[in-house]
């Protein structure tokens, strides 16, 4: 690893902090967008043997450019094997083969429940979002869940209009009460900080603050009074290696998506 650098954007810090959370031995169910960038960065840096699975059916895929969709040809071309979508959801996800599900969302609350369905009433929505896709079952069937989302008051809300996929439940107790054996969201990585569930209340609490970010910045960009863990550390800055690999990957991706 080379020396740390201060020349990075908040989004790069978020992606890099998210990548670091993944382990070489993980079998990871990858959401499209920010999760996909983080998972492939992990694979191209410290976790070369990580197994990345996309819901289109591609298992152990190693794309050289990031896919725009969940089923770009690149994913199939570089996969160990590609299975049908029913098999993916039944045998691999429901079958309990996935160690980490990596999700993003439009909105999140303090117990890491996610909304990607509607803002406003379901029958008369102010904003109709895409919906759940694979997320409702990813949230309950993976051994644990990492979430990556940039902080804003619009996205980090006190109360969700709709729970598309359950984190720890509306008040933090529902998941346990239902007897679900998987852990649920254990990490929330934002462009400002890293959060983990409080051992008792399951409220997502700040455990690490990214370099150059203040507590008041964090507090001003979410819709609830934020809680800090007993011990809060500073997230290590991105290394030159991490930044270089990330930027190369994104430059290749931009070029590929414009050409096609």
């Amino acid at each position: 690893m080379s020396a740390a650098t201060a020349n990075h954007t908040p989004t790069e810090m978020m992606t890099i902090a998210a990548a670091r959370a993944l382990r070489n031995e993980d079998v990871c169910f990858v959401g499209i967008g920010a999760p996909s960038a983080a998972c492939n960065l992990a694979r191209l840096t410290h976790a070369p043997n990580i197994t990345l699975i996309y819901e289109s059916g591609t298992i152990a895929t190693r794309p050289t450019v990031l896919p725009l969709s969940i089923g770009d040809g690149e994913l199939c071309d570089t996969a160990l094997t590609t299975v049908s979508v029913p098999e993916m959801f039944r045998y691999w996800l429901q079958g309990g083969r996935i160690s980490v599900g990596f999700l993003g969302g439009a909105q999140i609350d303090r117990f890491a429940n996610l909304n990607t369905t509607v803002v406003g009433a379901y029958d008369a929505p102010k904003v109709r979002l895409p919906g759940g896709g694979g997320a409702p079952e990813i949230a309950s069937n993976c051994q644990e869940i990492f979430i990556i989302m940039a902080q804003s008051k619009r996205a980090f809300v006190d109360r969700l209009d709709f729970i598309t996929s359950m984190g720890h439940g509306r008040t933090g107790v529902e998941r346990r009460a239902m007897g679900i054996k998987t852990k649920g969201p254990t990490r929330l990585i934002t462009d400002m900080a890293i959060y983990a569930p409080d051992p008792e209340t399951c409220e997502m609490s700040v455990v690490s603050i990214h370099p150059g970010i203040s507590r008041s910045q964090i507090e001003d960009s979410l819709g609830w009074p934020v809680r800090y863990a007993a011990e809060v550390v500073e997230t290590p800055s991105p290394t030159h290696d991490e930044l270089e690999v990330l930027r190369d990957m994104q430059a290749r991706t931009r070029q590929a998506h414009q050409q096609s």
Partner: protein
Amino acid sequence: MAEFMSLRDAVAHCIGDGDRVAMEGFTHLIPHAAGHEVIRQQRKHLTLVRMTPDIIYDQLIGMGCADKLVFSWGGNPGVGSLHRFRDAIENKWPQPLDIEEHSHAAMANAYEAGAANLPFAMMRGYLGADLSLVNPNIRSVTCPFTGEVLAAMPAIRPDVAVIHALRADREGNVLLEGITGVQKEAVLASKRAIVTVEEVVDTFGPTNRNAVILPSWTITAVCVVPGGAHPSYAQGYYSRDNSFYIAWDAISRDRDSFLAWMTRHVLEQGPEAFAVHARPAKASKLS
């Protein structure tokens, strides 16, 4: 046995107003040319079924072909909203759209149940998810052996499945490779099936013995439409046109620009307009 026919005849023969139609293809092999033909023939009151209603269903919805949508994720993958889908739900334009919303796992299981001639599907899912509060077709069933409560939903049994495959042989058997999604299940769950293909070959040649091949006698109509998946892709033939998916955001955002695009590129064209996209793949080396 499948009949080879023009796409125009296949849609006229197989799809009627009010039918329940599943056009499937999970990112790969989306039957865009067939969707355009349905729009040109002005089918109405369809119930459209599809896990990922992306651009093709945005177009069908925006052109007023659908009364109802059964789906699990409605967006432009990697780009953002489907503006015509949103306009229909948020503003009832061009007409109201009923929705029946599920998760991917539920839809995949429900297609499989349809193919297996079962009345319903079950899975361990929807735990703590609000969809079960707003969709009366999400129910539960108790395992008679363990007592575990599982989510249940009706099998999907469309009137018509529409898919795009790589190629057909002279007998009308069709081959799919790569990301095969739920197409096999959708065809086997449906009363009728239309399959568009890139080309017809004398023999499939050396295929993997476990390749997804749908026998001719499971299909109603086979139509040769080279490029017919564009802007989706056909592995080994052409790549996904990601730049078009990005461009669709601006085209579809505004009702007038959407209608102008549809007139120019769909209403005033025929299936042969897709041939220009049937170029050899730049990136894909599967075949």
